[in-house]
C-alpha cells in the first residue's frame, strides 16, 4: 500500500479538480452549467453525419438480429425443391438458393449469428483482456512484465491462424467459434486497458480511494476502469467489426457456424460454388457483411472523435 500522507477528503477534491482539468481544459461554459460527459459526447457524436449514418445502419442490423421473424417472409430453413435458384423477384426479393430457400430471410436470420458471435466475442475478449490489462497496469512490476510478455507471445501469432487452431481443437460450433475469436483478439483489449489505466493510476483520486481503505478490486473496478472507459469503448466498437469479419471468415472456410444455420460467411461459402450462374447467392450475404463492418467502423470512428477531449471545439 502506498503511504497515506493527505487526508482523504482533500485528495478527493484535488482529484475532482484534476479531472476537470484533464477532460474539460480551457472550457468556459462548463464552469457554470455542468454537462455530463456522456451527454456532451453524445451531442458531439450526432453532430457528425457519417457517425450518425453508421449508427443508424448498425441499429437497423441489431434490430434485424433481434427480431428477424418480424421481417422475414419465410423461415431460414424452409426448403422448397420446386423453386431452386430463383433470381430476385417480387416474392423473393433476394432470390432463392440451391435448396429453394429465401435468401432474404436467411440473410435476416444470419444477422443474429454473425453479429451475435461478434458481439459476444468482443464481450469475452474485453472481460479477459480488460482484467489482464488492469492487473498488469495496477500492480506493475513483475506482474506487468509477466502478463505483457505473455500477451506479446499471443500477439505474435496471427490472430486468424490462432482462431483456426482453436476451432479445430475445440470443434466447430457457435460457442467454440465465439471463444476462438475472443481468445485471438483479447491482447488488443489488454493493451488498451493497460495504457488507459497507467495514465490515471497515479492520480490523486486513486490515492484517495486507497486512503479510505478501498480494496484493490474496488479501486480497479469502481475507480480506474470507469475513468478509462473512453478508449475501451472505442476499441470495442472497432473490434466488433473485426470480430464479425473473423466469424464470417471462419465460417467461410468451414470452421464456424455449421449449415443449415444461415451465418453470412457460411452462406457465402455455400454460394461461391454457384457464383458464376447465380450471383445473388453471394452478393447479398457479402453485402451485409460489408454493411455491418462499414457501419461499425463509421460509428467507431465517430465515437473515438466524440470521446476525445482534445478534439472538442
Amino acid at each position: 500500500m502506498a503511504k497515506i500522507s493527505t487526508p482523504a477528503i482533500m485528495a478527493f477534491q484535488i482529484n475532482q479538480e484534476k479531472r476537470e482539468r484533464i477532460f474539460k481544459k480551457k472550457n468556459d461554459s462548463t464552469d457554470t452549467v455542468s454537462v455530463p460527459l456522456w451527454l456532451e459526447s453524445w451531442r458531439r457524436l450526432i453532430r457528425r453525419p457519417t457517425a450518425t449514418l453508421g449508427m443508424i445502419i448498425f441499429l437497423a442490423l441489431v434490430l434485424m438480429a433481434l427480431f428477424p421473424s418480424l421481417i422475414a417472409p419465410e423461415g431460414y430453413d424452409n426448403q422448397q425443391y420446386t423453386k431452386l435458384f430463383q433470381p430476385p423477384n417480387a416474392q423473393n426479393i433476394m432470390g432463392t438458393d440451391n435448396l429453394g430457400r429465401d435468401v432474404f430471410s436467411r440473410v435476416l436470420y444470419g444477422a443474429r449469428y454473425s453479429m451475435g458471435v461478434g458481439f459476444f466475442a468482443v464481450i469475452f475478449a474485453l472481460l479477459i483482456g480488460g482484467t489482464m490489462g488492469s492487473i498488469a497496469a495496477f500492480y506493475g512490476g513483475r506482474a506487468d512484465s509477466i502478463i505483457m510478455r505473455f500477451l506479446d507471445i499471443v500477439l505474435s501469432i496471427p490472430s486468424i491462424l490462432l482462431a483456426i487452431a482453436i476451432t479445430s481443437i475445440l470443434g466447430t460450433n457457435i460457442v467454440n467459434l465465439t471463444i476462438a475469436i475472443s481468445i485471438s483478439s483479447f491482447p488488443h483489449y489488454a493493451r488498451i486497458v493497460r495504457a488507459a489505466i497507467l495514465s490515471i493510476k497515479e492520480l490523486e483520486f486513486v490515492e484517495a480511494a486507497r486512503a479510505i481503505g478501498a480494496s484493490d478490486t474496488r479501486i480497479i473496478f469502481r475507480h480506474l476502469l470507469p475513468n478509462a472507459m473512453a478508449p475501451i469503448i472505442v476499441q470495442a466498437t472497432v473490434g466488433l467489426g473485426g470480430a464479425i469479419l473473423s466469424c464470417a471468415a471462419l465460417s467461410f472456410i468451414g470452421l464456424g457456424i455449421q449449415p443449415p444455420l444461415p451465418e453470412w460467411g457460411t452462406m457465402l461459402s455455400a454460394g461461391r460454388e454457384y457464383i458464376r450462374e447465380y450471383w445473388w447467392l453471394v452478393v447479398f450475404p457479402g453485402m451485409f457483411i460489408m454493411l455491418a463492418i462499414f457501419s461499425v467502423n463509421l460509428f467507431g470512428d465517430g465515437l473515438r472523435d466524440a470521446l476525445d477531449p482534445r478534439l472538442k471545439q
Partner: protein
Amino acid sequence: MKKQVIKALSLLMVVMLLAGCGGQSASSGGSAGTPAAGGGTAPTEGTAASVTVEDDTLIVALDAEGATFDPFNFADLDSGFLVRAVHEPLAYLDSTNPDGFTPVLAESWEYLDNQTIRLHLRKGVKFQNGEEMKASDVVFSIKMAKTKGLVSPVNWKNLDIENAKIIDDYTLELKTYEPSSFTFAWLLSEMVNIVSEKAYTEQGEKYGRNPNGGTGPYILTDWVAGDRVTFTRNENYWGEKPQYKTMILRFMVEGTARTFAVESGDVDVAYSCPTADLKTLSNLENYKVIPQKTSGVNYLFINTQDKYLKDVRVRKALSYALDLDTMVPIAYNNVGKVAFSVFGPSAPQQIKPDLVYKKDMEKAKALMKEAGYEDGFDLKIIITDRSARKTLCEMMKNAWAELNVNLEIEVLELSTILDLTMKGDYQLTIMAEGGFHGEAWRAFLHSDGVNNYSHYKNARVDELFDLAVKTADAQEGAKYYNELQNICAEEVPMLPLQYDEILNVLGKDLYYSVDPTYNFMAARFYYIRHK
C-alpha cells in the same frame, strides 16, 4: 491543392481496382506462355479460346498434385496419375472385352486350375532405362506390391508370391493359397504396375522422384513442385506411340481455376471440373464435357452398434423418409446417378435389389412407432467439407424432422472422421467408397472387414462373401452376391446414395483411343488423340 490531392488519390484507387480485376487474365495468360517456351507454339492466341491442334503438347489440368512416382509407395489417387503416366500394368479392366480385360504387358493368360494362373508376357518390351522386361521383373513388382500392400492389403493376402514359378523369360506361373475367383482378377485389374527390378533397387528411395523403370509411353523430364510435371514421349515405346510429343500435367487445386483454365483455352483437358460449372462448360464452343463414370459410390454409413441405429426398423424408417430421387440430383448438380444397390456400377455383380427405398412417410412413421421412437431422438452426422454432402445433410435434416428426428451436422477433417468411424464413436457419416468386384465390399460389410465403418455383423453376409470368392463359377458367384445385396437392402448398414461421376472436359477434337469407362483409364491421358 486539396482537390488535386483528392483527384490524384481517386485516380490511384481506380487504377488499383482495375489492376485487381485484370490480374486474373494477366496471370493466366502468363502461365499459358510458359509451356510454349518448353515445346511448341502457345496454346492460346488472343482471347479466342482455341485448343492445341498442330502443336505437339497436350496440357492437362488436374485437381491435385501427387506426392511420388513410386508405384509401390502411394495410397492416393493423385500420385496414381503420375505413376500411370510412366508405368503400365499387366492388364486393364475393360467391360467391352468378353473376358473383362484388355491385355497390356501380359499378352495372354490361362488358368491351370482354380489356384494357378500362367501369364505370357509381351516380348521385346523395353523399360525406360533400356533393360528388357523379363518375368523376374514382374515377379519382383508383384512381390513389392504385396509387401507394401498399400492398396487393400487384404486382397493381396491370398496370393502365394513366394511360390511363383518363372518358366522362361516371358512365362510365369502364380499361385494362391486358397481357391479364389477374385485374387487373379484383382491382380490383372491395374493393381500392380510393373517396374524394372534393376532400376528400382538401384535407386531405392529416390525412385519416386526419378522413375526410370517403367514401360510407359511417357518419360518424366521436369517436375515443378506445386505447378506442373512435364513428360516427353518415349520413342522406344512398344505399343502405339502417343500423338503428343510433350505432355504437361498442371496442378490446379481450386475447382473454379480449372474451369477458368478451360474457358481461357489454357489447357486441352481438365480433370474433374466442379459440377456447378456444368452449364458454363457445356456452352463452350471448343470443348466437350464428358461425365466420367467412376467406381465411387457415396454412402450414408450408419453405425449399427448405436443406441438408436442398432434397430433395423429405425434404419429402414430413416431410409424411407428420404426422397433420394429428388435430393441426389440437387446435391450433385445433376451429375451422377441415384444409387439403388450397395454394389457400385463398376462391380459386374451389381443387381437391382428387391427393395429399393422410395420416399414413403407413412411407412417410415409406422416403423418408428413400431420401434418405440414415435417421439424421435437426436442424431449427429459427421461429414467432410464438401458442398454436395453438406447440401445432402441439410435436406436429410429437413426430411427426418418429420419423424421428430433432430439431425445435427458437424463438419470435420477426413482423418478425424476415419478415426471416429473406425472406433465406432459416431452415428452417421457420408463417404465415397467403391470397387471393381463384389469382393471389394468385403472391406465394408464383412464383420472382419478392414473398413467396416458400420460395425455391421451378419453371419450370413460373412458366409456369402466366403462362398462367392471361393467359387470359380461366375454364375454361382452371382447368386451369392445377389443374396448379399438383398440382405444389405433389407438391413441398411450403409445406404447407397449416389453413383458418382466426375466432369472431365476435353478439347472438341480430342478423344480417347480406348474406352475410358472408369477413372483409372481416363487418368491415362496418353490415350488422348486428336482427330
